[in-house]
């Protein structure tokens, strides 16, 4: 949607990658359609999908983009909390992630960028700290990062975000990554045993993050709406997300109105996954009229 706003402002044409039925980025189709070509200015992809859990091959896509002179922008909001990310080795030009998905505060995030690129970008907000010299005729601007940090910054949030990063660093991103893979594999294994449950995205814990979206149907085949699923799970102390997860077109691609999403992190235990599976089993029976 932000890219639609940009396209409206700039007259750029917005084109989309498709995904395979398994929920992987369909790079073959993109190549066949010439999606990335000499007119491509920006390629924007998510590192780890917040709906499908898919881990996308960023270095490969960045190489394809750079071959045609495009700037490669990556949303790493689901990747940075779960994987040890080497930003320089990733190959992307701009990488964004958010505090609230890495046990940090809300309302703050990080934009990492290649310095030459940031230095070439104009300010997007005016205010204190972003200026160099101000005269009545005109102004010059501070170099990055201050150029993009106009006004009073969210100081408390920044301190909180730093504490979160130090906390995760002390545990070790490799350990967190191993736990995430283990808990996701355990959850996928459990979810696959439930009749009527369909996983959106890869159903094996290979190149996959710890967010699992699914649809659920009663024994008579009647779909159970995610809002009903989440409400019953909530009454058992299980928190899931119901709806589009900010990705309505993706749900249309899979022919479903909406989905339920369970997300796991460093604190999630096997016992909690068992409770989720039990809760879903109960939900299916309840709406199937068996209880």
């Amino acid at each position, binding site marked *: 949607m932000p890219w639609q706003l940009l396209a409206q402002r700039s007259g750029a044409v917005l084109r989309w990658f498709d995904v395979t039925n398994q929920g992987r980025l369909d790079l073959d189709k993109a190549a066949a359609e010439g999606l990335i070509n000499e007119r491509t200015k920006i390629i924007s992809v998510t590192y780890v999908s917040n709906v499908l859990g898919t881990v996308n091959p960023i270095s490969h896509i960045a190489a394809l983009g750079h071959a045609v002179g495009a700037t490669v922008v990556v949303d790493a909001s689901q990747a940075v909390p779960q994987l040890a990310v080497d930003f320089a080795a990733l190959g992307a030009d701009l990488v964004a992630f958010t505090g609230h998905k890495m046990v940090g505060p809300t309302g703050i995030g990080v934009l990492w960028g290649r310095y030459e690129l940031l230095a070439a970008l104009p300010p997007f907000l005016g205010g204190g700290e972003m200026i160099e010299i101000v005269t009545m005729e005109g102004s010059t601007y501070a170099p990055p990062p201050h150029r993009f940090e106009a006004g009073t910054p969210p100081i408390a949030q920044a301190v909180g975000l730093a504490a979160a990063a130090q906390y995760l660093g002390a545990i070790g991103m490799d350990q967190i990554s191993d736990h995430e893979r283990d808990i996701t594999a355990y959850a996928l294994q459990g979810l696959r045993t439930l009749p009527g449950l369909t996983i959106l995205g890869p159903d094996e814990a290979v190149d996959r993050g710890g967010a699992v979206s699914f649809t659920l149907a009663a024994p008579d085949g009647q779909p159970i709406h995610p809002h009903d699923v989440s409400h019953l799970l909530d009454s058992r102390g299980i928190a899931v997300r119901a709806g589009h997860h900010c990705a309505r077109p993706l749900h249309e691609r899979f022919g479903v*109105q909406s989905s339920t999403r369970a997300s796991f992190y460093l604190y999630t235990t096997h016992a909690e996954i068992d409770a989720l599976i039990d809760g879903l089993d109960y939900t299916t029976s309840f709406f199937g009229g068996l209880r």
Partner: protein
Amino acid sequence: MKVEDLYQEIILDHYRTKHHSGLRQPYDAEVRHVNPTCGDEVLLRVRLDGDTVTDVSYEAMGCSISQASTSVMTDLVIGNDIAYDLDLYEEFLTMMQSKGQIEPDEERLEDGIAFAGVAKFPARVKCALIGWSAFRDAVLRAQSEPKASVVKEMEQ
């Protein structure tokens, strides 16, 4: 209140067998209402004859609460005076906004009283209201826009 009590048999029955479902001709106004947080949608039509609501037809996607509430609403409003129906809307709205504090009038709201429990769950109040809001909107539009048939008569 246990969540199982929220899903009363009346609600599940209406969810499984929706009354007056489907889009029908003729109609005087058509509206689409959505709930962006969960993706629920209802496309609803009303047919008026003078001051009487003669039909409400709809196509809806959504959770059991929204589907059942829309079904119950059609049972309650079809065949009545517009003024009576708009009062009924206000009554249902008041009940849904009461956080479960209001004892609903079963004589007037009939199956609608099953949603009194939903009012205790703020996240679900919108679900129960989407069909009713669409109905009210459609009636007001039908009244404000001159009907095609009326326009033709005036031209003649």
